[in-house]
């Protein structure tokens, strides 16, 4: 996963990773635009697991103003967050 093979390719692999993680933990196929909180798929413990997973897998730190529910609401939102944080890290 190099950063310069194209944003689209990177975004796809991030989405796949997140979908797989969610599938493994919730035993549900989660579409990338499904609201994880509205559907009750993400419990309080699982919310933190998700945060830890995102930070470890994509080597980012989600802190301060980035720690919002909206950034974790869907697989797509998390993917955008990771891409944005990585942009910051690589700079």
């Amino acid at each position, binding site marked *: 996963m190099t950063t310069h093979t194209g944003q689209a390719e990177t975004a796809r692999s991030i989405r796949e990773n997140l979908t797989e*993680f969610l599938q493994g*933990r*919730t*035993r549900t196929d989660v579409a990338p635009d499904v609201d994880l909180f509205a559907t009750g798929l993400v*419990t*309080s*413990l*699982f*919310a*933190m*697991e*998700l945060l*830890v*997973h995102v*930070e*470890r897998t994509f*080597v*980012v*730190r989600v*802190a*301060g*103003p980035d*720690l*919002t*529910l909206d950034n974790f609401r869907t697989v797509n939102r998390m993917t955008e967050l990771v891409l944005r*944080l990585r942009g*910051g*890290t690589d700079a």
Partner: protein
Amino acid sequence: MRERKPREPVPAPDAARPELERLATDMVGDRADAWDLAGELPRDLLRELGGKGLLTAQVPARYGGPGLSSVAGGELTAHVGSLCSSLRSVMTSQGMAAWTVERFGDEEQKAAYLGALTSGQLAGVAFSEPGAGSDLAAMATTIRREGDTVVVDGRKVWVTVGAYADLLVVFGRYGTGAAAVVVPADAPGVGLERVADPLGCRAAGHAGIRLEGVRLPADSLLGGAGLPIDWLVTSALTYGRISVAWGCVGILRACLRAACRHAATREQFGAVLAEHQLVARHLAELHVAQEAATRCCEHVSRCWDEGSPELVTAAVTAKHLAAGQAARGAARAVQVMASAGAGDGGPVARAYRDAKLMEIIEGSNEISQLLLGKHALAVWS
């Protein structure tokens, strides 16, 4: 300005652990019984231990802490827990406050607060309220922005270290979500009342706290403000659960030490107690309890050090297992020691009372079971 990677690979400074253990052994000496009976730890001692890193073992070196891994910090916690659960309880609170700042604070907040917590200042974390114990979503304490200040109003109960604290990490409602704010204990509007005669960890400085129109600079508010309350507290509680679980390992070790020494020397019916099979069974079960709790704690600490998401559930599992084992193990130890262990303030009498509290704090047995039941269904159904 993303300052760094989430959590460094397992830190090297674990070599500092033996020295910190010796420091704890020397500083506690034979005084734990008296501290328990008096319901008070010497403040100077707490400040000295804090300044030497014992109370914030996992805070990274760049913020002034020893930077131990969770595995090494856990063993240190167990060691202190085997000497004095009140002191261990202070370690848990201070560590939880530090972790909350490290997790949610910005770089300036981390430098300021972690610097204070590693140089002798003491901190408690305020979760529970008169109407919000297990049901933290029922919190009534409010934190609100007013211009370049935040205003905190509410009442907190059973804040460990509350009576000794310089800083309080207070959780409360914030808009439609929740937030954590760092409140100096001497800020105008903060009132303290000591919990009289707690059942266990009697010297840990439990206090109720009143916050009446406490106005603070806006930068007292930690990041993540607005998140749902359970998102915010799960992070602090996960640290706390791991620390409590290791503390329970310490309780079990203290019980093993006392019960085995007694059983090896005390004679009844012409034989030492250990040769009576019903007594030997107690010792065997204590041994198994200590082993099981230790392995479970090592697992969750490895998850923490590796940044594995499994750590969240593993922390509840470890806390639940270790607290139950400590409560039953301490009862066994009192049983083996009988009248020799029945003096209040003694190691197994303290263990018996302290362990019971461990089944209540950082998620009662029942709350832990609810969380683990949900998890089991998600994984195994």
